[in-house]
């Protein structure tokens, strides 16, 4: 509002969203030996009262949907909260039963914090499908079961974690140099040496290093059963043994400037493989938690 160049735009509060916080204890749920594949939040939508549905239908005959948004709540050290929208879907006031949300990104964010003792906090927000005063109040007729004994324990919110045991499905670290790599070899990193001095095109151009140690990823990965996943992500392929960590390669090269021959440092990013993992291609790209 203090900017001289930008006109001030006043806002009005339209949202009268109904928010609920869900807290899941995650202690020992995801040990380092387990890899998260998918996390699903299940909420049980209670039937909306028939009388209210009829009244709503008379007033808004064409609009019976509300929007339900799931956010991950990060509780920071200074006791302030930050929310990240994770998944959202339309919910009809007529439907009853379990409604699922893909909260894999939320669990991934929680893991990135590195504090396994902290619970996973999700916020359920039920709001108008469209922000406009003309739209219906369907969001006021959507209720989810809670842990309240009156709702019955069977219908309490559930978090389902699909994991893979890394002992079976992960990479094995370094390859055994004494055993030749075959199709049956479990994904591993194989040490290799790139001899830059032996390359004709690099002669008298790359001055240092003469070569370097790196790895390549070889072997195969055990495949999980895709039908167990609740959300069918498109383009999902099998797990492949690929490089998941790389390092840069600095070089000293000779270059010509007019008649002079000079030297220069060049850094080639992601050139050296340092870690191989079994990774599923086509998985949603997990975002990095920003400070």
């Amino acid at each position, binding site marked *: 509002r203090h900017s001289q160049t930008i006109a001030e735009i006043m806002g009005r509060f339209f949202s009268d969203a109904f928010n609920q916080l869900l807290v899941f204890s995650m202690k020992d749920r995801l040990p380092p030996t387990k890899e998260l594949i998918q996390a699903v939040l299940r909420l049980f939508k209670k039937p909306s009262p028939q009388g209210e549905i009829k009244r709503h239908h008379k007033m808004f005959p064409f609009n019976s949907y509300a929007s339900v948004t799931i956010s991950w709540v990060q509780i920071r050290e200074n006791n302030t909260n930050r929310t990240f929208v994770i998944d959202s879907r339309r919910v009809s006031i007529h439907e009853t039963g379990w409604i699922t949300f893909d909260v894999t990104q939320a669990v991934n964010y929680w893991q990135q914090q590195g504090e396994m003792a902290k619970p996973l906090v999700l916020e359920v927000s039920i709001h108008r499908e469209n922000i406009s005063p003309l739209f219906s109040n369907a969001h006021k007729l959507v209720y989810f079961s809670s842990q309240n004994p009156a709702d019955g324990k069977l219908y309490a919110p559930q978090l389902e974690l699909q994991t893979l045991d890394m002992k079976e499905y992960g990479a094995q670290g370094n390859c055994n140099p004494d055993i030749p790599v075959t199709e049956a070899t479990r994904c591993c990193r194989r040490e290799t*040496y*790139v001899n*830059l001095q032996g*390359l004709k*095109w*690099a002669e*008298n*151009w*790359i*001055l*240092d*290093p*003469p*070569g*370097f*140690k*790196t790895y*390549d990823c070889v072997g195969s990965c055990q495949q999980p059963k895709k039908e167990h996943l609740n959300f069918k992500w498109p383009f999902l392929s099998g797990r492949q043994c690929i490089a998941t960590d790389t*390092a*840069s*390669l*600095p*070089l*000293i*090269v*000779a*270059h*010509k400037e007019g008649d002079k*021959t000079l*030297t*220069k*440092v*060049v*850094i*080639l990013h992601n*050139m*050296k493989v*340092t870690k191989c993992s079994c990774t599923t291609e086509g998985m949603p790209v997990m975002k990095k938690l920003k400070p």
Partner: protein
Amino acid sequence: KIEEKIQESLLRQLHLTAAPVLAKTEVDNLVIPDHVRTKYISLMKHTSEAPFSREK
């Protein structure tokens, strides 16, 4: 494959279309200045695994 990747990456960074052909005599007499060497060593330290190196 990695050799091809290095060549492509080098050419792109140096805005060249082909690897330069430098005579051995030009390079033999070349002295790597201290600031170039220092920068190179510091970058090497930052990479997780230092390459095998030797004096040239």
